[in-house]
Every structure is written in structure tokens, then in C-alpha cells.
């Protein structure tokens, strides 16, 4: 039993890493990882929203009717995002300014809605909270890794502190948009090599695992996911 809980917690960190294996939440992954500080703040903000929304959605899973579940989830998530926004604005205004519009965009981060659909609406409150923590940590670590590579090699600083001996080898392109796509692509390839390509394929997660999980489920609210249309399964197969 205890092992099982541990497994839920650690699943999100590597085996089902939301960014590198499930390929959810790509937008913030690319956008806020120009620096280590912003990457970690984004990761922690998402972690907080993910845990809270997983708990609430799991607690309400028998109350919310299946047909209106997606709008209900969106409202719950948007509520927590607003709370996080207001807390950051009040206590950490620097972080609030740094994350800008991407903070509000946590609402449409596929990780959160994806986990609500894939996990929280069929598991107990404790398990869902653990899943949220695991996924959130996995997300934060991946953002940190991306931020680390992009800031240290792109700007030769670590969290704002200069690293003089790296300065001659600086690659400023890494901190700009093309560098973001490049680092992300290379990281996914490295994970594929590391796990020898045995990581779960997208399809085994069904429709819910696709980048457009939420909308896809919305498209057929109430209908089980395996009833996906041809076009949509093509979408799932990135």
C-alpha cells in the first residue's frame, strides 16, 4: 500500500514526466525557461495550482456531472490560478512581473486539465494530491533543467550570478526563441535514449494524453475517449 503511494508520487518525476514523456504544457516550458529563477517560479506556481485543483476535483468527482465536467474543472482551476496570481502580486511582485501573462495562462496549461481528466476524477483525494505533487515536481525539475541549460550556456550566468570562465563560450541564441525549441527537442531525444525508447507511447494514454486533451474531451463531453474520431487520433499521434 505504502509502495503504491510512493509509486504515484515518483511516476511524475521520470516515468510519466509531464513535459518530456507526456509532452503536456509545452508553452510555459518554452516560454519561461530563459532563466533559472523564472523557470523555478513557474514550476512552483504550477505545482501549487496542480495540487489544489487535483484535491478539489478529486473530492468533487462524485458530485460533478460527467457532461459538464470540463467547464467545472476550468472554473476550479481558474479560481486557483487567480488566487496564486493575487498572492504573488502581493508578496513577490518581482516574480509576478517576470512571469507576466504566462501566469494567467496556467489555466490553459494542459498538464493541469490533463491530470484532472487522467487521474483526479477516478482516484481518491490522497492519491490525487500525491499525483499532483509528483507531476508538479517533475514539471519543476524539467523547467529547472531547461532553464539551467539555457541560462548557463546562453548567458553564462547561474540564477543571475555571473560565471566568468564560461563567458567566452557564451551562446546567446539559446536564450532566444529558436534556442528554446532546440534545447527542448534535444532533451526529449536524450530522454528517449536514456529510457531506450521504452517510455509509454502517447497512444497508450488514450485521447487524454494528447496535447489537446482538454478540448478533445470537451469535444465529446460524456462520451468515453476511445470513441475518438479519426482526425482527433491523428492529433494525438504527434
Amino acid at each position, binding site marked *: 500500500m505504502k509502495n503504491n503511494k510512493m509509486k504515484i508520487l515518483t511516476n511524475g518525476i521520470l516515468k510519466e514526466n509531464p513535459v518530456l514523456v507526456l*509532452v503536456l504544457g*509545452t*508553452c510555459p516550458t*518554452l*516560454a519561461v525557461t530563459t532563466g533559472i529563477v523564472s523557470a523555478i517560479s513557474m514550476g512552483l506556481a504550477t505545482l501549487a495550482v496542480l495540487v489544489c485543483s487535483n484535491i478539489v476535483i478529486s473530492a468533487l468527482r462524485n458530485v460533478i456531472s460527467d457532461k459538464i465536467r470540463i*467547464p467545472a474543472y*476550468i*472554473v476550479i482551476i*481558474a*479560481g486557483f*490560478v*487567480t488566487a496564486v*496570481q*493575487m498572492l504573488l502580486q502581493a508578496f513577490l511582485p518581482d516574480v509576478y512581473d517576470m512571469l*507576466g*501573462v504566462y501566469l*494567467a*495562462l496556467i*489555466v*490553459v*496549461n*494542459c498538464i493541469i*486539465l490533463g491530470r484532472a481528466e487522467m487521474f483526479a476524477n477516478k482516484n481518491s483525494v490522497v492519491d490525487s494530491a500525491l499525483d499532483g505533487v509528483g507531476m508538479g515536481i517533475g514539471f519543476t525539475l524539467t523547467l529547472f533543467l531547461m532553464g539551467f541549460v539555457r541560462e548557463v550556456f546562453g548567458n553564462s550566468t547561474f540564477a543571475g550570478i555571473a560565471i566568468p570562465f564560461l563567458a567566452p563560450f557564451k551562446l546567446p541564441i539559446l536564450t*532566444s*526563441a*529558436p*534556442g*528554446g*525549441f*532546440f534545447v*527542448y*527537442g*534535444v532533451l*526529449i*531525444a536524450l530522454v*528517449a*535514449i536514456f529510457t531506450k*525508447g521504452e517510455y509509454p507511447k502517447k497512444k497508450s494514454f488514450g485521447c487524454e494524453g*494528447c*496535447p*489537446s486533451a*482538454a*478540448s*478533445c474531451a*470537451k*469535444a465529446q463531453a460524456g462520451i468515453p475517449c476511445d470513441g475518438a*474520431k479519426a*482526425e*482527433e487520433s*491523428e*492529433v*494525438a499521434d*504527434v
Partner: protein
Amino acid sequence: MIKSLIIILMSSILVNNYTLSKFLGICPFLGVSKKTDQATGMGIAVTAVMVVATAVTWPIQTYVLDNLGLGFLQTIVFILVIATLVQFVEIVLKKYIPALHKSLGVYLPLITTNCAVLGVTINNISDGYNFIESIFSALGCGLGFLLAMVLFAGVRSVLEGNNKIPKRLQGLPITLIAASIVSLSFMGFGGIIENLFG
């Protein structure tokens, strides 16, 4: 006036392309760009929803939320408006223009959680644009998304099923590296705005 509108339009299509330089709407950019016709359909649907969403959310923010001092409800209200709007557009299209619904319909539900739509509505407010400027900015962002999607679909058609790509790079990694190169080409548009009108 017209000058500033053209500047807004050009800058959101080319220089600050939402997908390639602000990383908004990456999910459909990677997910629906396998075929050019699909990419075009998605791009057109996103453009339409962006313009309509801006036309609805701007007055709500200005006349309702700001007037009542409820600015903090922005995120919740906007996402609900967009979700409702997408459903509404789908129902109207299905009823009155079935042909268009048949070709664009499958993309519509995918747009609700497209962060570019929520992003453009929020950005228009925080940039302090007036109503007309907001509409043009939304139109520009949508067209920029369409342009990026169509260009990228062309690039991907070469990559798909190419056996010369190393095994572990196949699929998503090579797609992202290709996106990196497409994005690099868009960096070449930097500076075009300053020199647009001499």
C-alpha cells in the same frame, strides 16, 4: 491612425509572432501541423475565434470588470467567455453554414484550451489597446499563427517518414529542431517595424 494599425498588424504577424517568438499555441502548432490542409483549417479557425473573442472580452473588461472594480476576475471570466464562444460558433456554423462546419468543425473544440487565444485577449488589455487596435492585434496574431502553421506543415511533410533521421531523433525531437530553424528565420524580421514608414 491607419499607420499605427498597420504597424500593430505587421508586428504581430511577423516580428512578435505568437507561436514562434512568444511560444503561445505550441500544442496545436506541433499537433495539427502534419498536413497543410489541416494546418490551414486550424489557422483560419483560430484567427476567427481570436477576433471574435477579443471583440467580446474587450468590452467586458472595460465596461463591466473595470467599472465594478472586479479586475481580478479577468482570468476566470475570459476563459469562460472563450469556452462559451467556441461552442456558440460551432453551433451557429453547424446550423447555417454546414459546409464550412464540415471543414473547420473538427478544429473548433481544440481551440478552447489554445493558450494563444487567452493570451491575445489578456495581452490586448495589458497593452492598453483601444477597441479597434485590439481587433487588429487579434487579427494579426491569428494571421501570424496561420502563417507559422502553414510554413511549418510544409517543413514537416519533408520530415515525416524520412528514414535518414537517427532513430531517437524521429518524431517529436526532430520536429522541435525543425521548429527552431523556422523560428530562427522569423528572427530576420526584427527591425522591419522601425523602417516600415521610413
